[in-house]
C-alpha cells in the first residue's frame, strides 16, 4: 500500500478527514521549505502538497503565481524540489508528499528519469496540471510501476463519461476543483460541491479531496463534511507572502492548527 493509501485508511478508522495544505517549494526562500513542511505536519497536515515552481503557471491565480516567481528568483526547479523531498524524508518517513506542477519541467528532465528520481526522493503522488489522462498514458504507467500515485483533477465542467476515464488513470485520491477558474478564486458554491462529490463517489471508491477556494476554517469545516480531504492552497501561500522570514513558520503553524481543529470538529 502506498503512503497515501495508508494515510487515508488510517484516517478512516479514526473517522477523520484529511487536511492537505499546499505550499510552493522555495517560497519565500528554498532554505525554509523543508522546515515549513515539518511545521505543517506537526500542526495537523496529513498530506503535503508541494508546488513545483514554473515560469508559466496558467492554471494559477495571482497568489500562487507570485509564489512561483519568488521561488524562481532563487532558481528553484524540479531538481531542487526533489532534493527538498529527500531531505524531508530524513526525518519524516510517514507523511505523504504530492508534487503539484506543470508538464514542462517533467518533460525537460525526461519522464522516466523524473519517475526514478521522484521514487528515490520519497515522492508519493504527482499532480501535473496540464497532463490530462489522454496525453499522459505512458507517464501514468511509469509512476504506477514505482508505486507513485498519479493524482488527477476533476472540475465542475468534467462530464460524467470523462470522470470514468480519469478515474481509471488515478490512484491515491482524486482532487475535485470546487469552482470554475484559477487557484485562489472565491466563489464557492457548497451545494454544487456536495452534489458533484456525491456524483464522483458513485463512480469510484478513491478518496475525494476538494480544493480551490477553501479560504478559512469555516469553509474547511464545510468541505470536510462533504469530502475525504480538504486541500488548502492559496490561503497558505498568502500567509507565507504576508509573513516575514522570522514569523512564517509560526503563522503557518497557527493557520494549519485552526484548519485542523475546524475539520476535526465535524465529527
Amino acid at each position: 500500500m502506498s503512503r497515501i493509501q495508508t494515510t487515508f485508511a488510517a484516517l478512516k478508522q479514526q473517522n477523520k478527514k484529511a487536511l492537505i495544505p499546499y505550499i510552493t517549494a522555495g517560497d519565500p526562500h528554498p532554505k525554509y521549505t523543508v522546515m515549513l513542511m515539518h511545521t505543517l505536519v506537526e500542526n495537523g497536515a496529513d498530506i503535503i502538497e508541494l508546488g513545483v515552481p514554473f515560469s508559466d503557471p496558467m492554471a494559477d491565480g495571482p497568489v500562487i503565481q507570485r509564489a512561483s516567481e519568488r521561488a524562481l528568483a532563487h532558481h528553484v526547479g524540479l531538481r531542487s524540489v526533489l532534493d527538498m523531498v529527500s531531505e524531508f524524508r530524513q526525518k519524516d518517513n510517514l507523511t505523504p508528499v504530492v508534487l503539484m506542477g506543470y508538464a514542462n519541467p517533467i518533460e525537460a528532465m525526461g519522464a522516466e528519469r523524473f519517475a526514478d528520481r521522484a521514487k528515490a526522493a520519497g515522492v508519493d503522488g504527482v499532480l501535473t496540471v496540464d497532463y490530462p489522462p489522454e496525453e499522459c498514458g505512458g507517464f501514468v504507467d511509469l509512476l504506477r510501476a514505482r508505486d507513485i500515485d498519479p493524482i488527477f483533477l476533476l472540475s465542475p465542467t468534467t462530464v460524467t463519461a470523462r470522470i470514468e476515464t480519469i478515474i481509471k488513470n488515478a490512484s491515491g485520491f482524486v482532487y475535485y476543483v470546487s469552482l470554475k477558474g484559477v487557484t485562489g478564486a472565491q466563489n464557492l458554491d457548497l451545494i454544487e460541491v456536495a452534489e458533484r462529490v456525491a456524483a464522483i463517489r458513485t463512480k469510484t471508491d478513491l478518496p475525494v479531496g476538494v480544493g480551490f477556494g477553501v479560504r478559512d476554517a469555516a469553509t474547511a469545516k464545510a468541505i470536510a463534511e462533504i469530502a475525504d480531504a480538504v486541500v488548502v492552497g492559496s490561503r497558505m501561500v498568502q500567509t507565507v507572502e504576508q509573513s516575514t522570514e522570522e514569523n512564517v513558520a509560526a503563522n503557518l503553524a497557527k493557520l494549519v492548527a485552526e484548519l485542523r481543529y475546524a475539520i476535526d470538529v465535524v465529527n
Partner: protein
Amino acid sequence: MQLYDMPDAHGHFGIYGGVFAAETLIEAIEELRLMYEKYRNDPEFLAEFAYDLKHFVGRPSPIYYAKRWSERVGGARIYLKREDLNHTGAHKVNNTVGQALLAKRMGKPRVIAETGAGQHGVATATIAARLGLECVVYMGSEDIKRQAPNVYRMKLLGATVVPVESGSKTLKDALNEAMRDWVTNVADTFYIIGTVAGPHPYPMMVRDFQSVIGIEAKQQMQEMLGRQPDAVVACVGGGSNAMGIFYPYINDENVRLIGVEAAGLGMETGKHAAPLTANSPVGVLHGNRTYLMQDEDGQIVETHSISAGLDYPGVGPEHAWLKDSKRAEYVAVTDDEAMAAFHNLCRTEGIIPALESSHALAYAEKLAATMSPDQVILVNLSGRGDKDINTVAQLSGLTL
C-alpha cells in the same frame, strides 16, 4: 505520393500538438472541437466566411511583383502576397473573422484574445465591434509600451485592453492570462487564439482559416506566371501567416517552404526567438507539445526580437512537424537584417512592411541573391508597418 492529412483526430502532428490543458478547460476545448468539426465543412458557414473575407476584409489580397526591389537584390524575381492590404493591416483578421463567426454560432457573447504586436488584438476588436460582441484583449505591459498606436486602436473599437504584468510581460504571458480568463468565464466566453498554437483544435482551425492566403496565392501565381514559385518564404513567430501560405503548398513538393524566425541580437547570443532554428528542446506549453526555448529546469526563457509579433518562445506544432519531416526549412534573421530589409522595401517599392514581415523579406533578399532571374520567390508580406514607425524612429534616434 501520400497526401498530407495532419493532424490526427486528437490534434497530433506526429509527437507535436495535442491537448495539454488543465481539466477546468477540457470541456470548453471539447465543445469547441465539436462545433468546429460541425462547421468546418458546412456550406452555409463557409459561404458566410467567404462573404466576410471578400466584403469586410477586402480579399483577395493581390500578389505584387516587387520589380525594383528584385532588381536591386539581383537574382530571383520576388513576389509579395499583400496581406498588409487587408482591413486592419495584417493577415490576422482572416482568422478572427472565422473564429468570431464560430463564437456567434455557439452563442458566446464575449470574446477574449491575447496579443503581442497588437495586430491580433486589433483584428479581434474589429470583428467583435462588427458582431456586437464584448471584447477583452490581454497584452503584456512591455508590448503595450512598444505598440501604443494599436492599443489605442483597440480602445477606439470598444475593446478593453488588460495589461499583463506577470513573467516577461510579453506575448506568452498575455496567453497565460487569457487562458486564466477563459477558465474563469468559460460559460459565456470564446477565446480567439491568434496563432497556430494552443490546444487542439486551435492549431488546425487557425491554419484552416488562414489557408485562404495560400489558396489564393496558388491561383494568382498560376494566372500571373502560369507556374508556382520555387520558394515560399514567411516569417514565423507562432507561425499563423506561414501556415496559412504553406498549407496549400505542402503537397507541391517542388515548392520550397521556408519559415523565417527571429534571430534577435544573433543566434549565438541566446537573445532570440527562434526555437526551430536553435533546435530547442521539445516541451509542453500553452496546450500543445512543440519546440520550446527553455532552461535546464524546463522554465520558459525570455525571448528577444525587435518585433513584438515574433517574440514568442514556442512555435505552432505543425511547424515542428514540418521541420522534422523536412517538408519545410527554418532559418532565422537578426533584428539588424530585418531592419535593413524594412528600409529597402520602403525605399524601392513604396511599401512599409511590418517588422515581423521584414524578417521574411530579409531572408528573401539573401535567398534571391543565390538564384537566377528565371526563378521566383513568393514572400508572404503578412502585415504593414504603420504600427512600427515609433520603434523604427527610436532606433534612428528620433522621437515622433
